[in-house]
C-alpha cells in the first residue's frame, strides 16, 4: 500500500515478452493518431504535438516505472534536445540574422532533420549519463529535489546564455516534419525500445531493486549502475521528445520545457499508470482528450439556446484535480499499472 504508485502490480511471470503487450499499445496509438489527424489540419497539428508528449511520458516511464526513482529533471534533457536540433537545422542565414551572439561554429552548421535527431539524442543521453553518475546515488526525496535542481540549472543556463541558443527569445524557423507519419513512426519506435528495455534482464533486475533493494543487492545487482543506465536511456528519449517538439512547432525556447511541461507529462504518466508502457499511452491520450474537450468549452459551446463558456484555466484545473484524485483512489493509474492485454487471450 505504502508504495503503490511506484510499485509494479505485475507478477514476475508477466515480464516475459508477450506480443500482445507490445502490439496492443502500438495499434492503439497508430489508429488514434491517424483517426485524429484525419479530422482537420488543426487536429493533425495537435496529434503531432501529442506524439512528442507521448515520447516524453515514455522517457519518464523508463526511469520512474522501472527504478521507482522520482525525477522532476527529465524536462531538462528535452530542453537540451530541442535546442540541439534547433541549432543544427535552422538555416544559416536565419541564425546570422536572428541569433547574432551565437558561437561562430554553431552558426555555420546545418543538416537535415534526421541526422540532427540522432545527434540530439546522443547529446541528451550523454548529459544524462554525466548527471546520472552523480544523482543516481540518491533516492527518494533527495533524488526528487536534486533532479528538480537539474531542471532549474538547465533552464537558467539555456534561458540566458546566448552563445549556445536564443537566450530568452524563441529560436525561429526550425524545419517542420513534412508528414504526421514521421512522428507516428518515431513514437512507435520509442514504444518498442521502451518495452524491450523494460523486460530485458537489466530492466527486471532494476524492478527487483525497486521492490526490495536489499534482496536485489544480495542477488548481485548494483542499484547505482542500473539506475545510471536507465537515467541515461531516459535522458536520450527525453531529448528526442524535445527535438520532436521543436520540429513540430517550428520553433523552440527554454520555457517550452519548464514547470508546465514537467507537470503535464508527469500527470499523464501518473494518471495512466507509471509501471507500464500501456499506462503511458493511456495517460497521454486521456489527458489530451480531456484537455481538448475542455478547450472546446472554453471557446464556448451552444447547446440549444444556452451558450456555455468555461473561463480560462479550467483545463489545467481539471487535469490537476484528476491527478490528485487518481493518486488518492487509484494510485497505480487508470490501467492499474498493467501492460496491455486482451481479456480473452490472457491465460493469467
Amino acid at each position, binding site marked *: *500500500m*505504502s*508504495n*503503490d*504508485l*511506484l510499485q509494479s502490480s505485475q507478477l514476475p511471470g508477466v515480464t516475459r515478452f508477450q506480443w500482445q503487450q507490445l502490439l496492443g499499445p502500438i495499434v492503439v496509438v497508430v489508429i488514434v493518431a491517424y483517426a485524429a489527424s484525419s479530422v482537420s489540419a488543426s487536429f493533425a497539428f495537435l496529434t503531432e504535438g501529442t506524439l512528442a508528449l507521448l515520447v516524453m511520458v515514455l522517457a519518464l516511464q523508463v526511469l520512474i516505472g522501472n527504478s521507482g526513482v*522520482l525525477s522532476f529533471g527529465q524536462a531538462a534533457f528535452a530542453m537540451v534536445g530541442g535546442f540541439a536540433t534547433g541549432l543544427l537545422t535552422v538555416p544559416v542565414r536565419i541564425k546570422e540574422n536572428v541569433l547574432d551572439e551565437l558561437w561562430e561554429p554553431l552558426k555555420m552548421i546545418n543538416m537535415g532533420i534526421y541526422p540532427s535527431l540522432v545527434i540530439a539524442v546522443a547529446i541528451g543521453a550523454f548529459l544524462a549519463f554525466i548527471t546520472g553518475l*552523480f*544523482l543516481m*546515488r*540518491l*533516492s*527518494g*526525496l*533527495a533524488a*526528487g*529535489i*536534486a533532479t*528538480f*535542481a*537539474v531542471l*532549474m*540549472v538547465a533552464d*537558467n*543556463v539555456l534561458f*540566458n546564455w546566448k552563445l549556445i541558443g536564443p537566450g530568452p527569445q524563441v529560436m525561429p524557423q526550425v524545419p517542420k516534419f513534412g508528414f504526421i507519419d514521421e512522428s507516428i513512426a518515431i513514437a512507435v519506435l520509442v514504444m518498442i525500445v521502451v518495452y524491450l528495455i523494460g523486460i530485458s534482464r537489466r530492466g527486471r533486475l532494476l524492478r527487483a531493486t525497486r521492490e526490495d*533493494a*536489499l534482496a536485489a*543487492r544480495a542477488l548481485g545487482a548494483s542499484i547505482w549502475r542500473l539506475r545510471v543506465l536507465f537515467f541515461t536511456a531516459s535522458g536520450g528519449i527525453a531529448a528526442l521528445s524535445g527535438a520532436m517538439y521543436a520540429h513540430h512547432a517550428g520553433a523552440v525556447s527554454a520555457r517550452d520545457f519548464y*514547470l508546465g511541461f514537467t*507537470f503535464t507529462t*508527469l*500527470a499523464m504518466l*501518473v494518471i495512466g499508470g507509471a509501471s507500464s508502457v500501456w499506462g503511458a499511452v493511456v495517460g497521454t491520450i486521456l489527458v489530451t482528450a480531456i484537455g481538448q474537450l475542455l478547450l472546446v468549452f472554453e471557446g464556448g459551446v451552444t447547446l440549444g439556446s444556452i451558450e456555455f463558456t468555461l*473561463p*480560462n*484555466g*479550467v*483545463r*489545467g*484545473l481539471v*487535469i*490537476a*484535480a484528476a*491527478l*490528485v484524485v487518481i*493518486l*488518492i483512489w487509484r*494510485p497505480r493509474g487508470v490501467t492499474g499499472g498493467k501492460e496491455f492485454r486482451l481479456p480473452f487471450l490472457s491465460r493469467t
Partner: protein
Amino acid sequence: MIQTILDALSYGGLYGLAALGIGLVFGVMRLVNFAHGELIAIGAYLLIVTIDLGLPISISIAVTGTAILALLMEFSVFKRLRLAEPSVLLIASFGVSVFLQRLYEVIFGALPLSGQIAPWMTGVIEFGDTTITRGSLVTIGLALVLLGGMWFFIEKTTLGLQIRAASSDFQTARLLGVRSNRVIGAAFVFSGVLAAAVAFVLVTQRGSVDPLFGVNITILALVGTVIGGLGSLQGAALGGFAVGTTISLLNSFLGNYRIYTYTWLFILVIIVLLVRPGGLISNKAVKERV
C-alpha cells in the same frame, strides 16, 4: 554595504519564514508541500482585495483565510494519503499547487492584480550618507518576531512538544498518545500563518499578485528546507535563511552575471545533497534503510 548586509538578512529572514512553514508540515508527515506557494498567493490576494477595509482587518482576514486553506488542503487531500510514501506526496502536492494556480486564474484572472499595501514600507531611512529601505528593516523584525514566536511555541508548549515528538518519530509519538491528526492539523495552520506573513512582505515589495505569485519563493524555500535537513525545524529555518542570504549575496557580487545566480545556487544545492543527502542537520527518520 550596510544595505547589502541588511538586504541579505531580510531575504534570509523571509526565506527562513517560508522554509519553516514547509518544514513544519514536512516534519510531522513527510510531505514536501509544493502548494505552500499557493498559500502565500492566497494571502496576497486576500490582502489586496480587502485592503480598503484598513490594514489590521485586511491582515487578519489574510491570516485566517490562509490558515483555513491550509487546513482544507490537509482535509481534502493529504489526510487521504497518510500511508503514501514521500515521493507520492510530493507529486500530489504538485497537483494541488497547479490546481490552486488555475483556480486563482479562474477567480481573479490571469493578469496581475495590483494594490498598495503599506506603501510606507518602500520608503528609505537615511543615516548620514547611507540609506536603507524600511522594508528590509520591517522584514527582519517580522522574521525575528515570528521565528521567536515559533521557537517559543515549539519549545515551550504541549502542542509544540507533540509536534517535535511527531517530527522525530511519528509512530512512537502516536503510541505514546500524541493525537496525530490534531498535530498535523496544527502544523498546517501554523504553516498557513507563516505563509500569510511571507505574503505580506512580498506583496508590499511587488505591489501586485498573480496566480504564480508564490511559485518562485516556494521553490527556493523548499530547497532550503531540504538542504537544511528535512525533519529538523531549526534546520529548515536555517536552510531557508542560508538560501535567502546566498541569493542576495550572489546577486550583489555576480554583478552583470547575476542572471546566473540560480545556476550557482542549484549547483550548490546538488553538491550539498550529494555530500549530505539527509541535509545539513540530518535526522534519522529521513534516511533510507539500505
